[in-house]
């Protein structure tokens, strides 16, 4: 039900536009300028069209390739092999290990980012000196290129050349060489790099919570936990959920810095395996099938998140 706004006859309106708008079937005679419908279409259609043009071809191409044995390094024709690629992948224990490793990684990384990012936002959402400068400084980790981050963190983690062991007095502790620690080491880099993202969005959400709600709660003698869980969190939840959705999607796609940091079997994320399959082994058909399996998974997970988001918005 679109709410129609009631318009009064405005003395400065152009008689001509008045007549024209009167003839428009959709708008009330009183609205001037473009109709809501036109605006809606003008605002939405270009974006949608643009995205469709851009994504349709690659998506269809990959889908088609996933049913063939195509290899992009040769000129040999692609043969239709149906679901063979999918079967090969789902029967490969190494692939399943990639999935579990990535799942573990996503959970560690996104949780870390949210805890650190949101925590920082809570800290910054007060009257502290130089807030603007501090916020910009805290955003710096996010501003570096992934490849640079990977290269330098590899150096930082090195027991001989790196400052982490040096400053923390950890001696010869092996971050990247130890198979169990390596995944955490990669996740730490991710958390370091992307908590600012969550922080910024949370901060924007937090600073939008009306002060009078807090004042009312204080008058009512509400404790900090009550204030947080009943007032703050629900109001920030929509923006926070969006941040979580995007970070989760990106975490599944993690490649650049993980590839540079570690090549342990225990840190082989999906995107790394996918890259090797597609660009080192040139098994284009197989990698497309792999990508679609991952896509289905991500779609399913994101769907759940979006439902949460909508629930958070409905309050």
């Amino acid at each position: 039900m679109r709410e129609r706004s009631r318009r009064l006859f405005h003395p400065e309106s152009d008689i001509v536009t008045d007549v024209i708008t009167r003839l428009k079937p959709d708008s009330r005679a009183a609205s001037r300028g473009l109709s809501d419908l036109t605006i809606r279409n003008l605002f939405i259609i270009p974006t949608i069209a643009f995205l469709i043009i851009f994504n349709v071809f690659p998506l269809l191409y990959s889908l088609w390739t996933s049913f063939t044995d195509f290899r992009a390094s040769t000129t040999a024709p692609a043969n239709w092999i149906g679901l063979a690629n999918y079967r090969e992948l789902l029967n490969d224990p190494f692939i399943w290990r990639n999935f579990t490793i990535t799942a573990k990684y996503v959970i560690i990384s996104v949780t870390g980012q949210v805890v650190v990012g949101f925590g920082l936002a809570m800290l910054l959402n007060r009257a502290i000196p130089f807030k603007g400068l501090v916020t910009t400084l805290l955003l710096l980790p996010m501003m570096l290129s992934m490849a640079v981050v990977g290269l330098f963190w590899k150096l930082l983690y090195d027991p001989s050349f790196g400052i982490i062991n040096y400053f923390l007095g950890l001696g010869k502790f092996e971050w990247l060489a130890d198979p169990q620690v390596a995944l955490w080491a990669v996740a730490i880099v991710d958390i370091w790099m992307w908590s600012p993202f969550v922080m910024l969005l949370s901060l924007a959400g937090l600073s939008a919570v009306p002060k009078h709600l807090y004042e009312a709660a204080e008058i009512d003698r509400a404790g900090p936990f009550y204030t947080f869980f009943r007032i703050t969190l629900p109001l920030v939840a929509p923006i926070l959920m969006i941040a979580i959705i995007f970070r989760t999607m990106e975490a599944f796609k993690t490649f650049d810095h993980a590839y540079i940091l570690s090549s342990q079997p225990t840190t082989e994320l999906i995107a790394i395996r996918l890259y090797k399959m597609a660009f080192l082994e040139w098994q284009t058909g197989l990698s497309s099938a792999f990508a679609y399996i991952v896509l289905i998974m991500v779609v399913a997970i994101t769907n759940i998140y979006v439902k949460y988001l909508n629930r958070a918005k409905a309050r």
Partner: protein
Amino acid sequence: MRSYACRLLAGAAVLALWAPSANAQELTIFWAEWDPANYLQELVNEYEEETGVMVTVETTPWQDFQTKAFTEFNARGNAYDMIVGDSQWLGAASEGGHYVDLTEFFKEHDLGNVMAPATVKYYAEYPGNSGKFWAIPAEGDAVGWSYRKDWFEDPEEMKAFEAKYGYPLAAPQTWQQLIDIAEFFHRPDENRYGIAIYTDNSYDGLVMGVENALFSYGADLGDYETYEVEGILNSDQAVEALEAYRQLYQYTPPGWSKTFFVENNQAITEGLAAMSMNYFAFFPALVNPATNPNAENTGFFANPAGPDGDQFAALGGQGISIVSYSDNIDEAYKFLEWFIQDDVQKRWAELGGYTAHAKTLESDEFRNATPYNEAFYQTMFKVKDFWAVPEYAELLTAANQRLYPYVVGGEGSAKEVLDALAEDWKETFKKYGRTN
């Protein structure tokens, strides 16, 4: 109207025919971004002086080199006229129709004898022993070793070593000596370690490292003609070799779990290790005092021999091929004719390129030009390579998956690992119809 249209068409045709001639004066060679590419650019500038044809060496970082090259091939792009491709690409590129068949060129210029035989076999010929050639060996390379001469020549050390092991301390000639010396110099409390080896399993680092042990112990990766791996890859010698490599890993600096040419050179420049394996292509950086504070004290030796006296090293290096989608194939041929001349190859070596030209390699001038050239010359006649079939990367992936946990993590035994790998490879070869 008709005559007008005809004239228009004629004009357009003239323009169309005319325009390409402007491009014919330029050639593009694609290579990875490293010093040899800089040297090549200097060399081809001389070609421009002679002929007026401008040649540009376009580069991209090593990790992206293969991706960019094959994506361009797949799109049948003409961005590159020639490419200095890895030896492993021969199968994929020739079967994919991306390289121009240079067999005639080879026969015409007798390149089989002009270039060192090992280089011809591995950089140019595919399939093995087929007599078909696809690249001109351009940059010869193999794995060699650098070491800290000053540590080795210290009288105290020499005394202690001889006392413990019963023979004088010197650059190792056998793998057993290599292991002994690594053990001797491994002193974690002093922040000094025995050895630096390749362990990067994201592509071919680890496998190349293991190959050095494998080949010298008398084992092989398989039969390159019949694609049989059983009994060869997991032979007793192979098991011994892999165990030796694992032992060496124990003497590496901490955190040595993803190392390739960068880290291994750093092991010497930062004084971390007594010995370090690396491709000869990266040794110039070690003799330059500006990049290596220990340059004066850095010596080199070829990959040692195994217990049975076999001595081989893993092959690196690239050959220059003509891309079949190039618009300037004739011009490229002319360039190659210039490139293979004796004096040009000599000049190439002078500038720093690792020529594969047999006569230049054998010359005293070359062998004495740098501290490592002698080792290089010896090695280039004793090299072996990995599989060059189009599916080589899948073979690499399987090898990485099996070898890495054992070498770096100590999981399983060498026999188990090699048996499992032989199974993996057998399956891959069956998948591609190489065996039944």
